């Protein structure tokens, strides 16, 4: 039976392999993977289109053929926010938050752009307990801010090593600890990603 709500991890920085995908599906319950590919090493298999989301860094694309591109790849443009509010993040699909300074002004500035605000678990995996506690608090705060300013909150593993990968169970625990209802979170993320795939996004070319 086909799963209606897919489990999505949009930031996996590991080398793509069929075995990895099968492993993540079978053991970790992840259905959709966001991965960065170098050069021309894109997954051209049409069947993989629903499973793999190609991540690209902001500035890597010269044309505006985002969303469904000519080459049948679905791209999401990502950028990293490190606290500098003056930095431009126009035409970005996902903004990965590394620093919460000035985040509110960013949310106000890009309100209504259907952008995703991403938190990476790998950022705090090796932090001390105090930092972890604070991170959970911040995550809840950002989640509420995203709701207020119409952004999609995204929680991703950001895995650079196999041991940093996260299973569905652990994802749900992380959400629960931040008082985020996991069913609502997965539903919203599915809807947002589908909208992006359909190209129902506003891109400001200015």
């Amino acid at each position: 039976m086909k799963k209606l709500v897919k489990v999505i991890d949009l930031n996996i920085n590991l080398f793509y392999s069929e075995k990895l995908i099968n492993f993540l599906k079978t053991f970790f319950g992840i259905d959709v993977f966001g991965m960065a590919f170098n050069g021309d090493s894109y997954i051209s298999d049409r069947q993989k289109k629903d499973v793999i989301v190609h991540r690209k860094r902001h500035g890597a694309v010269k044309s505006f053929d985002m969303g469904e591109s000519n080459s049948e790849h679905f791209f999401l443009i990502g950028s990293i926010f490190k606290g500098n509010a003056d930095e431009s993040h126009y035409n970005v699909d996902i903004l990965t938050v590394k620093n919460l300074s000035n985040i509110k002004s960013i949310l106000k500035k890009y309100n209504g752009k259907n952008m995703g605000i991403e938190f990476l678990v790998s950022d705090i995996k090796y932090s001390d307990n105090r930092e972890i506690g604070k991170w959970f608090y911040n995550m809840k705060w950002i989640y509420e801010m995203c709701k207020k300013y119409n952004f999609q909150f995204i929680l991703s593993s950001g895995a650079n090593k196999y041991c940093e990968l996260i299973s569905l169970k652990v994802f749900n625990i992380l959400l629960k600890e931040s008082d985020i209802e996991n069913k609502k979170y997965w539903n919203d993320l599915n809807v947002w990603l589908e909208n992006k795939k359909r190209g129902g996004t506003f891109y400001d070319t200015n």
Partner: protein
Amino acid sequence: MFGWRTKKGAALSTTLTKKKYRYACVYLQNNDGSVYSRFMSDFYGRLIELCGSIDFHKSNARIVNVDAVSKKFLIVKCKLEYVDNVLLSMYFTNYPIIILPISGTIKQLKKRIQEFLVYGDFLTDS
């Protein structure tokens, strides 16, 4: 007399309050012998600090030795109500581990380990 009793006289209340346990299994990517003890002290430290000393003791988390399971796998038994705390603390330990899906029985866990060895062969090779 307090409590319910069956025809044979055994207290029914014992079955009603039976504690349920879960088995969490981790795969230690680099097991050089010392990792095992260091991982455990780090894991217990995380569990105490993240969830509190009271919940740590209530969780009853402890290592279980199971025959015919490789030393690369570490099995932790804990109370069902505290399995979330245990998994969270495991994830935040500073060791290269992979957390396998939790199981209710040792038999099921052994099955999962076998599956892991098939699907995750590329992890065990590295």
